[in-house]
């Protein structure tokens, strides 16, 4: 069970990496337009 002392920070660190990726994506405007890209996928040409 004492592995928790090691695994908890590792898990949080791993999660933190994804949070940082999200922050970066948000700042670059990836989430600015959530309406058109899904519609465009359905268009053929």
């Amino acid at each position, binding site marked *: *069970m004492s592995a*928790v*002392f090691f695994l*908890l920070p590792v898990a*949080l660190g791993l*999660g*933190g990496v*994804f*949070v940082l990726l*999200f*922050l970066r994506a*948000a*700042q670059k*405007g990836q*989430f*600015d337009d*959530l*309406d*058109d890209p899904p519609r465009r996928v359905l*268009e053929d*040409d």
Partner: protein
Amino acid sequence: MNEPAVAACPHCGTIVEGGGYCCTGCEMAAAIIQGAGLDRYYQTREKPAARPGKGRTDWSQVPVTEAEGGRTTCELAVDGLDCAACVWVVERVLETVPGVERANVSYATGRARLAWNRNRTNLPALCAKVEALGFRPRPLTAAPQRDHSLLLRLGVAAFVAMNVMLLAVSLYAGWFAGMEEAYVTLFRWTSLALATPVATWAAWPFYRGAWNGLRARVLHMDLPVSLGVVVMYAHGVWATLSGHEAYLDSLTMLVALLLGGRVLEQGGRRRAVEAALALASSAPRSARRVTGTTVETVRADELRPGDLLEVGMGEELAADGVIAEGRGAVRMALVTGEAEPRAVAPGDRVVAGALLEDGALRVRVERAGADTLVERLAAGLASAADRPTLPALTDRVAPWFTAATLVLATVGGLAWLVLAGAPAALQVTVAILVVACPCALALASPLAVAAGLGAAARRGLLLRSGDTLRVLARVDTVVLDKTGTLTAGEPVVVEADDAVLRIASGLERQSVHPIARAVVAEAARRRIPLPLAEDVREEAGVGIRGRVDGRAWRLVRGRPGEIALWGEDGHVGAIRLRDVLRPDAAEAVKELRGLGVEVVLLSGDHAEVATRIGAEAGVVEVVAETGPAAKAEWIAARRAEGRTVLFVGDGINDGPALAGADVGVAMGSGAASSLLVADGVVAVDGLKPVAAGLRAGRVVERTVRGNVLRSLVYNTSAVGLALAGIVNPLVAALLMPASSALVIGGALRVDAGVARS
């Protein structure tokens, strides 16, 4: 020695040895023009074109307005349009590009309005085409910088909330099943460490809102929220240090939910504001600056207060200022909504974006660039996107709520102090403050409003604020303009003499009125070159006068469906036009009447035409022959009777009516200036979005009321439990999400409600 043969470059007029084109750019421009069968440009242009060059604008970054079915629109400025032939060639060349639906270039304002199918072409390609001809397209004022900070805070808060909740579940499980002290301590300290950035950084918007409210002596929803968060965090620090259960899971969850509501609400409003801005923003144009005896052309953003500008007829002012010399007629519809040009003389103030319809002026600059009135209006519009609206209902509840919470916490704390001593009293006081934190109440309105704005937007109506939705719910009278609103706004010339059409098109070519567009379009279709008109004066609602070929002409409304041309010797001829009803107008009117609102047609047109159109659309009450001012008066009279009026219109003439109604909605196809005063924009070609907007308003109003009731019931019962001493962190962790889920569930049904009703 032989003199070498010289000839002018057929495109740009540069003298070239041996004849032919001066450069490949000109050769390509000519090839485009000839390939499109537009050779007439070379005969009708008043001066040679500029040599084509590559522009520096990255057009893929310029915002465009996208609508259903791939239709994309964009308005941009085009420099180098020196004559009507330039306008004509730009329009026609663009229209030969597959996928382009419309290319309108206004000679008067130097603006091009493009509509194309985004599946078949794009803005960079279209602009490259314009540049290849030797004209220089420029983007209009860039869209406001997006503020991502709420989304960033939400991302962090959501991540933390999920992890703290996981740790809390373990702790609660350990509470019942037993857990080694070392793990309990680890989990508690980890929770506190994770919750710290949420309680400080992520919750910052609520602290700021509460503080701003306090300074303005208003108690609004952010105050009890901040109070709850601060109490929970302070208690969390104390509990972790002293080895007690904390409310940190509730805290992080609450902040994440509230931020989620804010993000949704902000997104809904921003979409509307950006759409309006992209349509209406005024470009920093160039200006002619007078320095001593020289006149130089400079960019509008290079102007400084004190500069002297020269402004000619048909030009837009680049800065706010005072007239130093000259007289003229200025139309300031963009700012004041007034349609009629106003006569101005030295000493009068004029504003940037005003159009000099007549005369010549010298203007002393008072404010330039971002300080001009029109830029500040646009900036206000842009910042409105990032300012949370606090709809009236939750705002009215908030002060009472805060007061009641504080009183109950004090009374409860004192009672427990007397009955059970200090430690128990502290626990109860904290519990009251925690469960009283109005998470559900704070979410009640923004979530429903965001869902309502989204539901309206999907149906083609973009609203500027959530408050507009709430007013829409109360609307009982819908006033429709005729031209451009109930009708397609693009009347078609059905009968006209070539000679009459020629003079008329000359007079009308600077006008943006639909009739003018029809006349000019018909003239171009018949390949009648637009003659140059002088002293053109538009009389709003009456007609237009001016000089063509050295003679004076007047173009006025004649019999219904006709405009009549009068020369110096009397009536010359008439042009017959027909206004066609929008395809969905009758259905939209029926839908509006089905909602129980009174539908009225207000038209500046003759009674006969207005009645015919009204009958076709199914409108019972028709008020004809009302001018721009009379429309606003008519609306004011109805409002004085206690009615809530929605006005739908387009064009400059409707400015006062749009601003005077409870809710003013502009048709997106109308004049750009009307969009600055309107509360909403119909972004698609049609009237049905108006009915959808009314339905969305009503559903949202109902949902918000239901949500407020639900959250008040929750808070009351939770505070009761806390007073009884039953609430501990586990109970709070179960109660709070449950109440929020109720509210979120209500908001999720908004779109379905709009579709059903």
